[in-house]
């Protein structure tokens, strides 16, 4: 179980990215986090594993207060939190297997990882995961030789190789085409169901969120403005989160369950890069 309590983040530039965010994610629950660019979605999930240091508030994973951990403690906590990234964030020049095995870095010493001598059980698990995401034939290919969808599958396998208690997923489909986006989302949700794994998925695409998650949290200017089931996402709610717009097409699509891919030509997944996420890195 993940619990955020009054989490706030003010960047050194003075930008208030998050204001008093409190929420609880139950075991096995997959949460879609929606909101406009700059709403603080990326900051929020990065505050959970402290890739971004929260300014105030607490993050509890189970009974452990992540915000109070020392450096070593934080490293051990990060081992339990898998992360999947927008542009895959694979190490391009390493092989697929090395990328997946890097999920075990928190568990092995430096020299073992330097000589790529991972425990046999980890390697066996990596093979199994690559099989699960359908990449058994690409074990020794370099990550930059794969297509977008394949890379994201490696990203998923890397996160699962950690054997995590929680998944943080940052715009998993933002650089993928509509069909691949749906395949990746389906895979993520299936895997979370199989393992009873809770996850927070940042997602631009409202229709995609409605199709795949059972709980949606809407973030606007760093505050939670909506928390409920996908069916409750009415035009009024979307206006509150994103601002005034004609939402009828988005809502209709939700009713049809978004199966018709051709209708998605204008879906926001084609927006190239989330600048807010990049800004948060500097």
């Amino acid at each position, binding site marked *: 179980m993940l619990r955020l309590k009054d989490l706030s983040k003010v960047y050194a530039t003075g930008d208030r990215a998050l204001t008093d965010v409190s929420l609880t994610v139950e075991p096995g629950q997959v949460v879609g986090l929606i909101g406009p660019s700059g709403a603080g979605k990326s900051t929020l999930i990065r505050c959970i*594993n402290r*890739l971004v240091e929260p300014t105030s508030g607490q993050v509890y994973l189970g009974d452990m207060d992540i915000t109070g951990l020392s450096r070593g403690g934080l*490293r*051990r*906590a*990060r*081992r339990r*939190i*898998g*992360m999947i*990234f927008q*542009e895959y*964030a*694979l*190490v*391009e*020049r*390493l092989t697929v297997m*090395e990328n997946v095995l*890097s*999920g*075990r*870095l*928190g*568990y092995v010493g*430096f020299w073992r*990882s*330097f000589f790529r001598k991972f425990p046999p059980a980890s390697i066996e698990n990596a093979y199994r995961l690559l099989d699960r995401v359908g990449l058994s034939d690409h074990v020794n290919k370099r990550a930059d030789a794969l297509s977008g969808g394949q890379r994201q599958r490696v*990203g998923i396998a*890397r996160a699962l190789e*950690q054997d995590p208690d929680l998944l*943080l997923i940052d715009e998993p489909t933002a650089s993928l085409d509509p069909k691949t986006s749906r395949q990746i989302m389906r895979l993520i949700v299936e895997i979370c169901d199989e393992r009873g794994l809770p996850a927070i998925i940042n997602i631009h695409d409202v229709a995609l969120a409605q199709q795949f998650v059972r709980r949606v949290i809407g973030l606007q200017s760093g505050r939670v403005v909506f928390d409920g089931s996908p069916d409750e996402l009415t035009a009024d709610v979307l206006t509150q989160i994103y601002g005034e717009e004609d939402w009828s097409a988005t809502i209709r699509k939700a009713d049809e369950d978004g199966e018709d891919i051709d209708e998605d030509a204008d879906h926001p997944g084609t927006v190239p890069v989330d600048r807010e996420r990049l800004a948060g*890195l500097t």
Partner: protein
Amino acid sequence: MTDAGMTGATDYRGWTRPPFIKRPWLRWALYGGGLLYLVLAVASVEVNWVRVWEGLERGQRFIEGFLVPDFTSRWEDILQGMEESLTMSVTATVVGVLISIPIGIGAARNIAPLPIYAVCRAIVALSRSFQEIIVAILFVAMFGFGPFAGFLTLSFATIGFLAKLLAEDIEDIDEAQAEAVRATGAGWWQIVNYAIQPQVMPRLIGLSLYRLDINFRESAVIGIVGAGGIGATLNTAMDRYEYDSAAAILILIILIVMAAEYLSGYVRKWVQ
């Protein structure tokens, strides 16, 4: 007023690029001042045309020597000098690269803590602020004539060069890859090994080969101040007005540098 643009197709509005310096008087003052300085500076250079005329003849003899390079009469000396220079540059490059890797990592602001960064940047600055010849003179004074002083000089110069460029390359990496590895709970050394090394390795190899080639050329220069190698041989040939032997040496240097150039181009493509 506002509908002036709609009166007809012939009513063009025109466009010029906004000037870099907005205030016209400042712009022209800077341009004019720059031009004036240039004219005065060129005028202040004293040229002794009589000396130039005399020098032309010497230059001609030099070029004539070049046209008939003499590889044979000093072949033993040339061979020994080349061997010394090659040994000097290879060993200095290897040692310099090995030392500059930790310093380069320490001088990268995005991964090094501030005190280490400051120390490593200071080492880089120190190494870069002294030209090879000055360092060579110092080492010759300390360790005597010969290739050992040359080896030390080139190692020292390699550290500044490579550590600086490596640090800049590390600062330019794709942070997302490092972030992803950090998120798995990896330690600092593991992040360096898994996320940073793969990103900078091709450039590090390319730069090391480039530095090998620079070190070889530098070995010809520092030999002149007594640090051994082909430079010493070249200097002796020049002192004896044996321009044909000097030409042979220069041609060999050019050939070796060219060979290194092709080799490094090939290797760089291979490690990409």
